[in-house]
């Protein structure tokens, strides 16, 4: 019985119609109907199995089909073709605080949300105190949830989620919110119970560190297809390699309908030579060529640098240096250069994502642009005394040691 896979996914595909539900009576007239195909395959011919007690990570770029897969497994939506079999009670966590009702109190919402997520009356009653304790908001438990801060909502939602006890748990990206300490507490509680006798977890996340820490196995999706089924470490490395191009010059396809777009990105050294491999301590220069098709004000070029496991290191924007750039920019081609302050970072592969748009209003273009390497330059932190200094940063700290004449009393 235990050897049987808990989840079998057999050749499933899912088709969406991009314009579904948008047609009106008028569009029934043949001439008015758009001719282009509106079919879109979110998943295509996917097959895999998950054994009992396994923790499977699911990674892939946005739109790769990760969430669609979870929705099919949890029966929220049906697949277009193929078969799935799921043996066991399924708990689905696609958001924190599923089913919270604004007008109801925290206490009422624990019971409501708990029931929605699959708990029974006795189970919630038994765990209620523990849930409230875990959330750390006991004094507000009889306040309507609409008066909660977003942090409090998240904590209460997480506390309920962490006390779910299904045989199979499907988790989507929910760990992207909430403060780090609390996330860790939840991950710990969820991870506690996997293993041969424990629960099976399917875990979608962009947090590649969490994937590596929690999952024994990981599948990588790309445009709806499964392209790798391997150990978490292997899959994460493969994903980063595929999504960030390892080339000093990257040119992006034309987007004629965007208000603006990123055209080319180049990675340069101090002397202006194209390069992707730098010694630790160097300051790589990023050159972005972009295009605006109409006058825009308030727009900025943003650059996000992430570390070897996609940890966000820092974000920077062209308007940080020259706030005058917030004024209207005329249509045309631009080139921007920025020296990336990488001098204190350790050996590893780093990734650059670029954005062009008006913050929080309009995103013209966004590209996971390229990756570059920092290698051992023989200075501090280099392979010395038989091992290399660990950590994201290379920080030389100053120590002072005094020898004490008198021994401990």
């Amino acid at each position, binding site marked *: 019985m235990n050897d049987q896979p808990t989840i079998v996914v057999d050749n499933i595909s899912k088709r969406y119609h991009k314009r579904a*539900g948008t047609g009106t009576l008028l569009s029934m007239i043949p001439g008015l109907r758009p001719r282009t195909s509106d079919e879109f395959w979110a998943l295509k011919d996917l097959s895999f199995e998950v054994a009992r007690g396994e923790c499977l990570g699911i990674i892939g770029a946005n739109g790769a089909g990760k969430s669609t897969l979870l929705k099919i497994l949890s029966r929220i939506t049906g697949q277009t073709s193929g078969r799935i079999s799921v043996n066991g009670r399924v708990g689905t966590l696609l958001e924190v605080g599923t089913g919270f009702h604004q007008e109801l109190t925290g206490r009422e919402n624990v019971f*409501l949300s708990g029931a929605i997520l699959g708990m029974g009356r006795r189970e919630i009653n038994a765990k209620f105190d523990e849930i409230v304790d875990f959330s750390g908001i006991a004094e507000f438990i009889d306040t309507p949830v609409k008066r909660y801060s977003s942090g409090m909502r998240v904590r209460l939602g997480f506390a309920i989620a962490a006390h779910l006890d299904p045989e199979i748990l499907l988790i989507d990206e929910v760990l992207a919110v909430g403060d780090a300490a609390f996330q860790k507490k939840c991950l710990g509680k969820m991870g506690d119970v996997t293993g041969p006798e424990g629960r099976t977890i399917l875990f979608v996340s962009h947090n590649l560190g969490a994937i590596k820490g929690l999952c024994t196995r990981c599948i990588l999706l790309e445009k709806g297809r499964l392209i790798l089924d391997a150990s978490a470490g292997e899959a994460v490395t493969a994903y980063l390699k595929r999504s960030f191009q390892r080339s000093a010059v990257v040119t992006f396809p034309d987007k004629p309908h965007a208000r603006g777009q990123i055209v080319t990105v180049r990675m340069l050294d101090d002397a202006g030579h194209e390069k992707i491999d730098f010694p630790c301590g160097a300051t790589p220069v990023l050159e972005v060529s972009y295009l605006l098709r109409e006058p825009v004000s308030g727009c900025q070029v943003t650059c996000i640098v992430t570390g070897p496991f996609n940890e966000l290191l820092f974000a920077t924007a062209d308007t940080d240096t020259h706030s005058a750039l917030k004024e209207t920019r005329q249509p045309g081609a631009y080139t921007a250069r920025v020296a990336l302050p990488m001098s204190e970072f350790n050996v590893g592969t780093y990734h650059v994502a670029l954005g062009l748009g008006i913050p929080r209003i309009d995103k013209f273009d966004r590209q996971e642009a390229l990756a570059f390497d920092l290698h051992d330059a023989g200075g501090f932190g280099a392979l010395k005394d038989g091992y290399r200094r660990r950590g994201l940063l290379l920080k030389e700290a100053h120590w002072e040691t005094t020898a004490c004449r008198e021994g401990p009393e």
Partner: protein
Amino acid sequence: MSVLSEILSRRYLLFQLSAREIKSRYKQSYLGIAWAVIQPLALMTIFSIIFTKVIRIEIKDYPYPIFVYSGLLLWGLFSRSLTLLTDSMVSNANLIRRVYFPRQMFLLSGIAARLVDFAIAFLIYFVLMIVYRVRPTSHFMWSVPIVGIVCCLALGVSLFTSALQVFRRDVSAVMRLVVQVWFYATPIIYPLDRVPARWRWVSYLNPMTGAVEGFKDAVLRGRTPDLGLLGISVATTAALLVLGSAFFARAERQFADLI
């Protein structure tokens, strides 16, 4: 696992969803649950003024207000259920996109919430019985199965309308119109025997006719309902439930994608 056994195994969720429906409706309102009573009382007053002062309509044996209230009471349960349920998939879009349980549970919890309103409005009927000196008889018990039929009828219709509403939002607007026309096609504000004989067959085909007439027989006139008329209601209801369940089950697979 069949939908029915799945719903049964999650009856605590059904309870919670119904409680949410009831609690959320009356939170942050002054009159709260009293609104369940105000609506039928207001309609009763309006129709009583129109049909006793403006246009005279003769009701044998019973004062007009209690006659019309008994009909409005049952109609209120039906029509308010229907409008609530038709919108229930779309108004729960957030849940439908994020978690799975049988979607029929939204319909059942909506009915449960409306039954609570109905029970409260029924209390006023007892007051009217005292005021107009109407004695309850043993036939009063017929009201129980009749209320059951009306709930099932609302459920049967909304299995279609709530699913169609997901595909096209026009459905809810159409239903509001249908409910209005249906109201006048049902002998609520007028007695059935005032319908001209050659049009009466239309009334007979209306499944709400048997229910409303039967309800008035049970709680007002103190006699056994016309079982032939009631049979039409039961047959229509059963057919709608069977066909509606099949239709809903097919449509449900697409809810999360379209809603």
